[in-house]
């Protein structure tokens, strides 16, 4: 499996990272090196092995289903790059 320039463009869009056109080719090379290197896992026999979901075998504690938070609009908005009243401002999404 080898990533092409177009693959990198597609992944970069999935990750919402703008990669300049001239960086796509070198980046494909870098990513291919890494992907080629992790390919060695394919030689490990994992038939019937459960994928790890938790590193420590404990039961997750449950808490009462009650409201524990809220009413902190100012805190939530404190770092907003663009705020309108009690809302986050974003570029227009509906024409």
């Amino acid at each position, binding site marked *: 499996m080898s*990533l092409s320039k177009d*693959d*990198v463009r597609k*992944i*970069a*869009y*999935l*990750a*919402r*990272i*703008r*990669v300049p056109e001239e960086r796509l080719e070198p*980046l494909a090379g*870098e*990513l291919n*090196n*890494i*992907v080629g*290197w*992790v390919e*060695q*896992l*394919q030689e*490990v026999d*994992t038939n019937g*092995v*459960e*994928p*790890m*979901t*938790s*590193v*420590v*075998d*404990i039961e*997750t*504690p449950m*808490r009462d289903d009650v409201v524990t938070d809220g009413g*902190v609009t100012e*805190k*939530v908005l*404190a*770092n*907003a*790059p*663009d705020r309108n009243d009690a809302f*986050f401002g*974003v*570029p227009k*999404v509906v024409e």
Partner: protein
Amino acid sequence: MTDQWTIAKAADALEKGEVSSVELTDAHIAAVEAGRSLNAFITETPEIARERAAASDARRAAGNVASPMDGVPIAMKDLFCTEGVRTTAASHILENFVPTYESTVSGNLRDAGSVMLGKTNLDEFAMGSANITSYFGSVKNPLTPEGANADLVPGGSSGGSVAAVAGGLAIAATGTDTGGSIRQPASFCGLVGMKPTYGRCSRWGVVAFASSLDQAGPLTKTVEDAAIMLQSMAGYDAKDSTSLPMELPDFRAACTRDVKGMKVGIPKEYTLDGMPDEIQKLWDQGVQWMQDMGAETVEVSLPHTKYALPTYYIVAPAEASSNLARYDGVRYGLRVPGDSLDEMYELTRGEGFGEEVQRRVLIGAYVLSAGYYDAYYVKAQQVRTLIARDFENAFNEVDVLLTPTAPSAAFAKGEKMDDPIAMYLNDVFTVPASLAGLPAISIPGGYDAGGLPLGLQLITGVCQEETLFRAASALEMAAGGGQ
């Protein structure tokens, strides 16, 4: 002089009234200012430090000492959210982020009375092994020989924290460890670095990198200090669903320096082709020390060790790509304007993330994408199960494992920078324990031919920190440290 202080010595001197927290803190604030060429701090907080020091002295005068950390000046890795104090994760995207809440670990340390001197530099989002990916510039290892052509790296990602402690700017510091980010820099700077069992320290309020691996821990000058500091950092936290709902043992009491009858495993797969002789020699010396102190050493096998790094470089980027999806230019952090919402996201993240972070987010997005998820991510999580099983089998036979911490001493800035995989190999000995969630510690074991420190690593089973501290305190004594 600030570099002679340990937490234990400071606690003792404070108790005897030989020094006040304000005096101790002022001396360290001056050291932080004098040590700015190390670039160890992203944000200095001298006002907060003086305020907390005065409050500590007042508590002491009233007979209400909170803990052995009370009044002790420490440095905080800039990955822990601190209320009202800028928290950057060393990233442009969080350059001006000021949290409105305090992380559980930094809050625990504050409540224990410790004095925060500032927020330390790190690799961007804790992704790196040399502290060269920070948006705020690289950190200089304080052990760089005078007149050297290039600065030595302090290791990473907790590079600012180790530089601060090794340089005498702080008595101790917090670190976080995802694949070795506490232990490897500790090795590079001649310090003790300890990663507890996954879940001992709450991840709440710690800027997330790879959630199933991230774990906080102490960076200190001695094993005893690591035990004292971990006691204040750790503990169950309902705000982190992976936090361990268990009482903490008395870590300091476990530092008995007694390993008589202990069984120490030497994993044969940790011998690497092309490993420097001095690393092998130090490891052999460690084995000898353990035997001389009455421990029994046996060779053990961890057959999947060589797959740990490639497993890590699937799991960690996958989790990072999910975690870092939150940086959208809308709710906090940098925004670069665009004509559409999508364009705004892309421009913000393209400019806000550095090269290594982008590389890892892209790898993560790729291994999680449709058609590749099973081949990469599920496969890696299966191999991870096998790696954890190897450790379980070993710990049926032995109490603790002894290995080198890193495959080399600190290297010069500029080395290993062209090839990401060469940089990743720094963590070859630390990543396996991270994948299995096990507690592990690096202690200074000796020096290379150039006089640079080399670390030895000890690993124990899940929640066996007491055994870890027992073994580490003994090994430290054998290596001539811990005074």
